[in-house]
């Protein structure tokens, strides 16, 4: 009876629960507010951690759910001095060899202040080639505190109408040592849907580091 009275006090005359009827404990068993978007515009889809890995691939989750995907790599450390690269796949990751045309320019600055540079690197761009695209050129691997970071935007990978554009910016420490900033952009020259992506160093393992994949909500 006491409970009934308390319950009654928590109801409006229309039989609707008042705020006092529900508190944080009341929803402890609710594990999914499916109708609440949560205001997320950048959704973390996957995180992978390297540990002497030959490569890190994302073979699920790249579809038409999102019109833009963002990949971030944080403190990827090569087993030896090497360039960090990526490629895409249209067959779920069986082959990473999509034809691409790209641009690559960079800025660097030596720790001893002996040299600075801003310019286009014709050795790192692609003209209708299907091999891996460099996004950090010449990452130091011999020193334990050397690493590379960066982000890559991949636009509408599931489109079957348009080529697939990407924009990337990478920052790393090179062996000499100097700071090196990489600007890479271009398009995968295919109207097939891209559904997988692979990151690796050109010849050596990824000793350490993480790579995250985000989806950017459409609306």
């Amino acid at each position, binding site marked *: 009876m006491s409970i009934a009275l308390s319950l009654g006090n928590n*109801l409006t005359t229309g*039989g609707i629960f008042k705020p006092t009827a529900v508190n944080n404990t009341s929803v402890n068993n609710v594990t999914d507010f499916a109708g609440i978007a949560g205001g997320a515009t950048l959704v973390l889809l996957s995180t992978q951690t390297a540990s002497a890995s030959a490569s890190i691939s994302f073979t699920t989750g790249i579809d038409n759910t999102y019109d833009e995907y963002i990949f971030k790599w944080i403190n990827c450390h090569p087993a030896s001095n090497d360039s960090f690269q990526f490629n895409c796949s249209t067959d779920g990751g069986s082959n990473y060899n999509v034809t691409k045309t790209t641009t690559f320019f960079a800025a660097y600055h030596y720790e001893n202040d002996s040299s600075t540079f801003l310019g286009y690197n014709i050795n790192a761009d692609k003209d209708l080639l299907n091999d891996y695209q460099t996004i950090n050129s010449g990452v130091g691997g011999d020193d334990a505190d050397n690493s590379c970071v960066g982000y890559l935007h991949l636009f509408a990978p599931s489109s079957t109408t348009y080529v697939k554009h990407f924009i990337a910016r990478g920052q790393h420490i090179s062996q000499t040592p100097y700071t090196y900033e990489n600007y890479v952009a271009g398009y995968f020259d295919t109207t097939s849907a891209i559904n997988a992506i692979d990151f690796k160093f050109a010849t050596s393992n990824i000793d350490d580091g993480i790579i995250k994949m985000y989806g950017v909500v459409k609306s």
Partner: protein
Amino acid sequence: MGTITRTFANNITTSGVFKPNAFNNASFDNVTAVPSGAIESGGMVLLSTQTASGDASISFTSGIDSTYKEYMFIFNNIHPASNSNLQFQTSTDGGSNYGVTATTTFFYASHQENDGEAILAYKTNRDQAQSTDFIYLTGDNMEASASDASVSGYLHLFEPSSTTFVKHYMSNTDHVADGPYQQNNYSAGYFNTTSAINAVQFKTTSGNIDAGTIQMFGIL
């Protein structure tokens, strides 16, 4: 009470499950948290917003730790009291000292409003080679005399709590430079330390920051 009970009963199915009309938005006014994962969270978590008002500097001395692998700072309409550049530095002692050794690059695209000059150039007097000085985020002095002139942009700081790696950052700002010029500035580099970075400070090369906001986000 009887009327309420009958009305309430109408909000329950014969299986005893609440119908949608048992709750309205006000019913959950006192719910301020739900179990982790119950609501899809955003990839960016706003940790702090600071608004400048004649401040010598703006510092973030808490919240920078191993919780996030990446922190992003967004500058919105920073307006200086006098012609000056926006700079930043970091701290490994919670903000007691801002002067971590850094090597950086700086280049910018600059376009004069009267179309007299349009360039893309590396700017050697804005980079650093193993220096503990504050790091430039803008190329030429911001124009203070124009009340509508400001700088906006962002700064990514990667894994500041790492005790293994140097700490990389990348920034991009756009501002109205004295002239006036439009300048799009790119600065990047690393703090050459394996100590954890736990505070960040922003200031101008001279004078106060009259207005503007700086937000700090953690990236999940």
